[in-house]
């Protein structure tokens, strides 16, 4: 019976089902360990912090689908939050909608830098974004002169926004922030599943040669992925600013790793081509739930969270690799095709030897 259910769900559905089960199991486990655990407060807390992580993870997911990675995403969040705070301190009367668009625009500019370097100059994204991770952060530090953005300098509506509830059901407060984040996440899900422009990301990551053969522009698709990732990180920066108010130069540090974690745990193939946004949302929730719960668990220190995140990523990738190998096991690879084609970067660069 189990197998027939799993067959019906398909690989993505299976992953979502497993993630849901694991989420419930972990919540139940911690509720047996921690007093007063499953409360409306926990819900509010996790839902607000997941809304930020989910946004950047979705951007990261789109990039990873095209066989790339964006390690600069945490710096983009920090930069956007900081610059936005600075702008708002000088121009407190800006319309909220414009502020949100501005945040996404700032983020997209950073994404453009990454995207151009990767797609036009054929540079490996891991190196480019490792460099821009430092570069963007140093721009932030330098332009800040060491000073921080404080709650006092921000317009009231922004601070209020982070605490405003859209509705309350039996003590479960649903913040506007959460609703907006969920709206964006589901819009992206809709875009990636229902639109030709969205399917291109899958096609490029799944088989760059075939994508090119079908007339899909590889470079443009990769650039778009980085733009989306930047814009969503910008939006996350806006929420970050609203939620925390006080922004220092280290704001957003480490978010890049959390987003990679959410993406991989959420079932996006780290080698590109497949994955679902719903899975990424659940992956982000899972990681945040573990993070938040460890802080309150007395038996094990909260300092385990990075160790657990790292091992979780490794475990998820190892499982995917071994599963994929088993699936392919029945088919004989062409002897002249020993090198896995996945080593080809989506930007079209393959290792070349001189002639």
């Amino acid at each position, binding site marked *: 019976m189990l197998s027939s259910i799993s067959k019906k769900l398909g690989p993505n559905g299976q992953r979502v089902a497993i993630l849901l089960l694991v989420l419930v199991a972990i919540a139940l486990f911690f509720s047996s360990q921690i007093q007063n655990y499953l409360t409306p407060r926990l819900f509010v807390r996790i839902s607000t912090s997941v809304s930020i992580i989910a946004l950047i993870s979705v951007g990261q997911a789109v990039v990873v689908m095209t066989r790339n990675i964006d390690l600069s995403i945490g710096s983009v969040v920090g930069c956007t939050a900081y610059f936005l705070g600075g702008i708002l301190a000088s121009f407190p009367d800006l319309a909220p909608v414009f502020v949100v668009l501005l945040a996404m625009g700032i983020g997209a500019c950073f994404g453009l830098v990454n995207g151009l370097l990767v797609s036009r100059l054929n540079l490996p994204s891991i190196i480019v974004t490792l460099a821009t991770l430092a570069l963007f952060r140093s721009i932030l530090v330098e332009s800040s002169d060491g000073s921080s953005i404080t709650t006092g300098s921000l317009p009231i509506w922004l601070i209020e926004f982070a605490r405003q509830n859209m509705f309350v059901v039996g003590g479960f407060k649903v913040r506007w922030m959460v609703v907006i984040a969920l709206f964006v996440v589901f819009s992206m899900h809709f875009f990636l599943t229902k639109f030709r*422009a969205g399917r291109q990301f*899958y096609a490029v990551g799944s088989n760059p040669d*075939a994508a090119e053969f079908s007339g899909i522009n590889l470079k443009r698709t990769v650039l778009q992925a980085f733009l989306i990732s930047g814009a969503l990180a910008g939006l996350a920066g806006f929420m970050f600013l609203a939620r925390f108010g006080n922004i220092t130069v280290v704001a957003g540090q480490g978010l890049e790793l959390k987003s990679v974690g959410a993406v991989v745990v959420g079932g996006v193939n780290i080698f590109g*081509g497949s994955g679902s946004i719903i899975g990424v949302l659940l992956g982000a929730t899972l990681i945040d739930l573990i993070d938040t719960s460890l802080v309150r668990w007395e038996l094990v220190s909260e300092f385990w969270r990075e160790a657990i995140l790292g091992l979780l990523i490794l475990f998820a990738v190892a499982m995917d690799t071994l599963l994929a190998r088993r699936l392919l096991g029945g088919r*004989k690879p062409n002897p002249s095709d020993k090198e896995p084609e996945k080593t080809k970067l989506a930007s079209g660069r393959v290792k070349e*030897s*001189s002639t």
Partner: protein
Amino acid sequence: MMVAPILEMKNVSKHFGVTAALSDVSFEMFPGEIHALVGENGAGKSTLIKAMTGIHQPSSGEIWVDGSARILRTTQEAQVIGITAIYQEPMVFPDLDVAENIFINHHSRSQFILWNDMYEEAEAVIAKLGVSLDVRRPASTLTLAEQQTVEIARAISLDVRVLIMDEPSASLSDNEVQRLFSIARSLSSQGVAVLYISHRLEEIFALADRVTVMRDGTHISTKVIDDVTNESLVTEMVGRDMEGRFARKPSTATGEDMLTVQGLSKNGVFSDISFSVEKGEIVCFSGLVGARRTDVALALFGIDPANSGKVSIDGVVAKISSPKDAQELGIAYVSEDRRKFGIAMDESITSNITLPMMNKYSNSVGLIDFDAESRDAIEFRMRLNIKAADLVSPVGALSGGNQQKVMLAKWLNTAPRLLIVDEPTRGIDIGAKAEVHQILHELAAEGVAIMIISSDLPEVLSLADRIIVMREGRIAGEFIGDIATEGNVMHLAVGAGVQMEFA
């Protein structure tokens, strides 16, 4: 025929540097015909296909579609006017399902995807092919044949008018080939012109309306299938006097077995391979692409070990599970793919030559004796007449023939007792070819057992003491070198006519 042709190739030539891959090829294709294209390896078939699909542009000549000249700059442009090719290795998106593979980036689709509509249309396209396939399955779960079907379906959805099938049957089972045939027939009944390329003559007689033979980059003939026979096709493909002989050196075989292989099998690749090679003997493996000759060599060399069977070296049963094992038994394998498996193009000539034998050039702590290395490299340069300015330059800087000699030197340096050479002279010029042949003869005279895999029939006939013909993973027959002809080797390789008696 009364109908106007869809596609006409008019005096098409294609040069790469000084070598002509196609010279003055003309032929035409009519709607609804299944047109077979045959020729030996290197006859120019794939260059022709590439010219037809916009991958290569002809150096001279014109391609006419529907009675007017067209320039095809990309595969896209070829697709738009209805020319599409599918290859032995299908090009699909493994993560996407069948329907999406068919319709991805399809010009007729709206930006918003109506999945249910798409599935229905995909089912309709698949139904046109007269096969059944769940359009919701991801392509990664499909067999090779099913992936091909998806590619054909994609072509149909693009209103294909000329469908080129390049060796589509090479890795298919008999049932799958039958299904492919019915797809091709139903396409032709719908007015599509199918260009079918295959080495297997029986497939051509079963399927084609007309057949075109190519040889050495030129068009030899185009005839209605009823006007040709096995013999006439083979004669035209080989193109030389089939009984002609080449100057041959006397055999240096010693009668003492170096290698004995009994019942070697690998699931789904080759089965029941038995043969032996004597010291000083040159045994050539002949056959077509996909005959699995290289796979047998890779099994003997420990890259892809066989599942069952017995390999004996000097009469002692040997277990070979890695190239290291093979090397220690005195086996060397010179790959057909220089660039991929043969030599590291960025590394120096000397270090490539000495790579498998590094222990010979190092002291007990692993320090390399550079002098000894370069002494040996210089010796090989003289012995094999490698033309290189110096031996520290990267191999990639040399010409193809000299690269080939470096690869040979690399394995000769291991002092092999069994040398397996895969396509020893592919892509090198006549002079270098003769030199390589000379070297192989000298080695045999020194008592080395030599196993050659070659698709070049004149080469096989001039070198071989014995010829073993493989076909679809099995040994199809064996000839004594002196009495073999291109005709009877080819017959056995393509599976035409009666089974040859073992000579």
